[in-house]
């Protein structure tokens, strides 16, 4: 929780990691990819305040103590959601697998939630694994990475018939939060890994599932926004938006926030630190302090109130994951109109 000027914020970090990208975990023959991946992440850390930068050695592998201090003690995070990311073609034991994340969840059961994953290219075996994982870890969500490499394939689409089977399985197993990575990625080649039209397709076909688009489709925010206005069950995952822009490019940050508030609305935006790319503390404190610039360029964006910030920092995610939020963090129902414009609904296509 974070208290500031008499306001109490319940903080849910919608996207964080506990990874091992140290050389000992690099797959032999794939070292350049394993090394390149983590170095690319490390460059993104450079977009945060200088005093929060880590040396690459710590960044490759940080300890449980680091995690607890950065996230719970200093970072104000009440509940964190692990988005498991396997990348087993590059990392022998995986980058941060469900099994590894679950070990931490066991130690901090009220503070952490681990999401699973699936990959339609794994077929029947993948479906069985998903079923086992769901039962063993009581999965509420999965993180999907459509640009992941697998046996010579360099990506897949949610539109594929195999994906439909996995989504049906999710529905059957009660896994209702589908986080899809649509953001900065490695090696999209001809597979247009940023393309959000596949989310559009499945959001329509699976209205009972929630689709959280991680990194808001960067570098194609516009495609994401136009799509999100059409689909009531599509949410904006703000990992990278706050971490990557709020400090490094504050005016662009204000514009992106303004656009998201207009097109998507504050009820469907979820903050996430993307730890360990960026530490949560400066993001939470900075966002609570943040106001949009006053000049005319920003004048017709919806304004974000303290209540709106409470939703984005935790209440929205708490709803999706059924997290109990104590009364003192709730906002009253008479809080007024949420920031979003009705005419955003009029958009049919870009």
């Amino acid at each position, binding site marked *: 929780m974070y208290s500031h000027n008499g306001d109490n914020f319940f903080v849910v970090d919608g996207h964080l990691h506990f990874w091992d990208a140290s050389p000992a975990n690099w797959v032999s023959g794939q070292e350049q990819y394993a090394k*390149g991946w983590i170095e*690319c992440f490390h*460059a993104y850390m*450079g977009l945060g305040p200088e005093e929060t930068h880590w040396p690459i050695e710590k960044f490759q592998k940080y300890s449980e103590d680091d995690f607890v201090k950065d996230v719970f003690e200093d970072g104000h995070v009440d509940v964190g959601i692990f988005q498991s990311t396997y990348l087993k073609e590059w990392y022998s034991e995986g980058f941060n697998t469900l099994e590894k994340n679950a070990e931490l969840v066991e130690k901090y059961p009220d503070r952490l939630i681990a999401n699973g994953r699936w990959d339609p290219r794994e077929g029947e075996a993948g479906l069985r694994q998903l079923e086992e994982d769901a039962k063993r870890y009581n999965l509420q969500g999965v993180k999907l990475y459509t640009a992941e490499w697998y046996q010579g394939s360099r990506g897949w689409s949610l539109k594929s018939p195999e994906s439909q089977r996995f989504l049906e399985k999710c529905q059957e197993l009660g896994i209702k939060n589908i986080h899809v990575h649509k953001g900065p990625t490695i*090696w999209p080649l*001809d597979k247009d890994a940023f393309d959000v039209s596949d989310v559009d397709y499945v959001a329509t076909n699976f209205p009972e599932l929630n689709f959280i688009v991680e990194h808001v489709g*960067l570098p194609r925010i*516009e495609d994401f926004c136009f799509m999100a206005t059409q689909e009531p069950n599509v949410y904006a995952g703000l990992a990278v938006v706050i971490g990557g822009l709020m400090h490094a490019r504050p005016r662009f940050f204000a514009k*992106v926030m303004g656009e998201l508030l207009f097109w998507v609305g504050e009820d469907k935006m979820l903050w996430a630190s993307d730890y360990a790319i960026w530490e949560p503390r400066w993001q939470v404190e900075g966002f609570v302090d943040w106001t949009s610039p006053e000049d005319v360029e920003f004048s017709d964006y919806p304004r974000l109130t303290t209540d709106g910030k409470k939703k984005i920092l935790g209440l929205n995610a708490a709803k999706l994951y059924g997290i109990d939020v104590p009364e003192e963090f709730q906002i009253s129902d008479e809080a007024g109109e949420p920031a979003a414009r009705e005419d955003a609904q009029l958009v049919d296509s870009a």
Partner: protein
Amino acid sequence: MNTRARVLEALSKVHDPELDEPITSLGFVTSCEVSPDGEVEIVLRLPTPQCAPNFAYLMAADARNAVRRLPEVGRIEVRLEDHYTGEEINAAIARGDGFAAAFPGETDDDQLDTLRELFQRKALVARQARLCKALLADGLTPEQVTERRVADLRDDADARRCLELRGQLGIGCDPDSPAFVAPNGEPVAAHELTLWLRKARLVRTSLDVNGSICRSLLQIRSRRGAELEKVGT
């Protein structure tokens, strides 16, 4: 103007297809050497080694084609440095091959053309957003804005780039054509202008944000590169 200056001028016309900015102003051209007998060597460096190979290929190929149009240059070498697929792309460019030949069995050129066209349309919309905003700020009504013709456009960088993109997309740009068009080339009606501008401004924001992230990452990369050199690793 000497040959090197003309080569650089030609490179300044090459745009990052995703960002719609010249590769020279983005800082992607790290070196440009011209030998006394007109041999040209160009080195490109992108913000991360993982930048999308499709866009990387387009920039390298466009750079080579732009320079090849200069009559006084001889052999041209374009080299993408510190990039995962640099070897494949450099070899394909040197052979004069397309993207598909750089990655046999993994892609085909049609998709690359489609991708380029998609971004040309985005770039056009985003450029028009700036022109349109300026007119509205001058006090014009939506009707007056949508009645504007190509001939009415001020001769500035945004307008010139709009016309260049329209030409590439096959959207009419004779003096009597409408100044503001939807991504498919259809004229924008006055009653649609507010929403059209809203969308166009979002595309503008998206391109600007991506450009700013690319610049920041490139700066971080250069700084770290310099630090590594200093400690001699």
